[in-house]
C-alpha cells in the first residue's frame, strides 16, 4: 500500500477544485445550448416538411376529388339491364341541349344501342366536322 503524504502544493488542490467545477458546468451548459439549438432546428425542419407534406396532400386530395368527379359518370356506366342512370341521362340531355342551342328540341328518350358502334372513327370525325356546316345551311 502507498504511503500517503500531504499534497506538496496546497494551491494545486484549489486550482483543481475550481477548474473541475467550472469545466463540468461549462461543458454541460454548452450541451444544454447545443441540444436546445438542434432541437429547435430539427423541430422547425420537421414542421416545415410536415407543412409541405400537408400542402402536397391537400393538393393531391383536390386533384383526386376532381378526378373522382370526372370519373364518376364513367363509373356510372349503363346498368347491366340496359337502363341508364340519371347522371348519364342528365349529361346526354345537357350535351344535346348545348348542341341545338335555342331550338325547340326536347329529349324524350335515351336508349342504349345494342352492340358496338358500327360507325368508323373516320366517319364519326367527318360527321362532327359537318355539323356546323349543316347548321349554317339550316339543315339542323
Amino acid at each position, binding site marked *: *500500500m*502507498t504511503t*500517503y503524504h500531504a499534497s506538496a502544493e496546497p494551491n494545486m*488542490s*484549489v486550482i*483543481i477544485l475550481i477548474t473541475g467545477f467550472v469545466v*463540468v*458546468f461549462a*461543458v454541460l451548459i454548452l450541451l444544454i445550448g447545443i441540444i436546445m439549438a438542434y432541437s429547435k432546428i430539427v423541430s422547425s425542419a420537421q414542421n416545415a416538411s410536415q407543412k409541405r407534406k400537408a400542402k402536397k396532400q391537400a393538393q393531391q386530395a383536390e386533384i383526386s376529388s376532381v378526378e373522382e368527379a370526372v370519373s364518376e359518370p364513367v363509373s356510372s356506366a349503363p346498368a347491366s339491364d340496359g337502363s341508364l342512370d340519371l347522371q348519364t341521362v342528365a349529361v346526354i340531355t345537357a350535351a344535346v341541349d348545348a348542341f341545338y342551342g335555342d331550338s325547340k328540341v326536347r329529349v324524350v328518350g335515351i336508349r342504349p344501342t345494342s352492340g358496338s358502334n358500327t360507325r368508323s372513327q373516320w366517319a364519326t370525325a367527318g360527321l362532327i366536322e359537318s355539323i356546323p356546316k349543316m347548321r349554317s345551311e339550316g339543315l339542323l
Partner: protein
Amino acid sequence: MGILQGFLDALVGLYYDSGLVDLSWKNYLMMGVACVLLYLAIKKQFEPLLLLPIAFGMLLVNLFPDIMASPSTTMMPLADYLAEHLADFNNTPVETLINEANLQSTLESISYAKTNIDGQWYVNVPQYGGLFYYLYQGVKLGIYPPLIFLGIGCMTDFGPLIANPKSFILGAAAQIGIFVTFIVATLLGFTNAEAGSIGIIGGADGPTAIYTTTLLAPHLLGPIAVAAYSYMALVPLIQPPIMKLLTTKKERAVVMTQLRPVSKLEKILFPIIVTILCSILLPSSAPLVGMLMLGNLFKESGVVDRIFKTAQNELMNIITIFLGVTVGATATGDVFLRLDTLKIIALGLAAFCLGTAFGVLFGKLMYIFTKGKVNPLIGSAGVSAVPMAARVSNKVGQEENPGNFLLMHAMGPNVAGVIGSAVAAGVLISILG
C-alpha cells in the same frame, strides 16, 4: 499400522492446507461483511445484479486468497527439478544429468529460464495465477468500464434529457461532491491523484470510478471499486434521508408537467453531438462517453438490432459478472481492514452524500426560478446510479403524493449525471494523469 499412519498424515496435510490454518481474523470479519452484503442483495434486493457478485467475490477471496494470486516464478534447485521431472529425461539418474559432461545439454533441454547463483543452478518454474487474477485484468487495464458503458448506452433513453436539457444543470450540480471530497481527501493526507480517485466515488458511477482510479491511483483500485459499487447498491438507503432533510413537504409534492415528445432524429443526433463535443473538449473522457454514446446510437439508429441486443444483454451480463466478482475479490481482509481503506470508505460516503445534497439544492434553486414547476427531488438523481437514483426520486415523491410520477423527469438528471461524471473524470484525468 502403516495405513493408519498414512491416513493420519493425510488428514494432517489436509488440515495444514485448509483455510483453518492460513486464514486470519481479518478474513473471517470480511466473510461476515460479505454475508451481510449477500443478505442485502438477496433479501432486500439492493442492486442484486451488482451486489451479489461483489459479495460472493469478497466471500470467496477471503476463504481462498490464492484465487487472486498473481503469477510468479519459483526458483527450484536444478537437482530438485530434475528429480521431479525424471520422466522427461528417460529416467536417467540425476547425478548423470548434472555431471560435467551432461550439464550443458540438460540445461538446454529445460524450457524455463535458468539462474546460476554461486555455481548452483536454479530453474525458474512459473506458478500460474488464480482464476480471479486473470479476470481482474479487464478491470486493471480499464477494459470493462467502457464496455459496461456500451451496455448502459444501449439501455438508456436520453429522451427525457433532450426534452428538458436543463436537467444537465442537476447532473452537473451532483458532481460538486466529487470536487469537495477531493479537497477533503488532500487535507487528510492523500496525494492529488489519490484524492481525485476517491472523490470520483461521489459520481456514483462504478465504471467511471474504476476507470479513473486505474489511471490515477491503481493501488487504491480495490477499496475504491468496492466503495463505489457498494454505495451505488445502497442508494435506496443513503439518499432518502438527505432528500427529505433538504426539502419541504410542499416541494416534494410538486407535480411536474408532462415532457414533450422527442423525435427520432433528435435522439439519433444526440449521441453523435455529445461524442464530438466531449471528445474535442475533453479527450480523456472519450473512452467512457464515446462507448456510452455508441451504445445509445446502436439503440436509436434501429439498424443494428443484433449487436444492440448483444451489447445490452449478453456482453453486459458477462462483463457485469467478471467485474462484480473481481471487484469483490479485491476486498481481502489484509487490504481492506486498514486505516487508509476506512478513510476511503468514509470519504466515498461523504462524496456520495454531498453529490446527492448538491443535486437536491440545485433542484431547489430550479424550483424557485421556475416558480414551483420543478420538483427538487429530481436533483438527487443527478448522481448517476442509473436508474436506481431516479427510482428513489420517484419513490420519495410518491410518499408525499401517491399520484405523482417523477420517474421520467428524474431520468433526465440521472442520465445527465452519467455524462457529468464522465466529464468530471475526464477533467481529473487531464489535470492529474
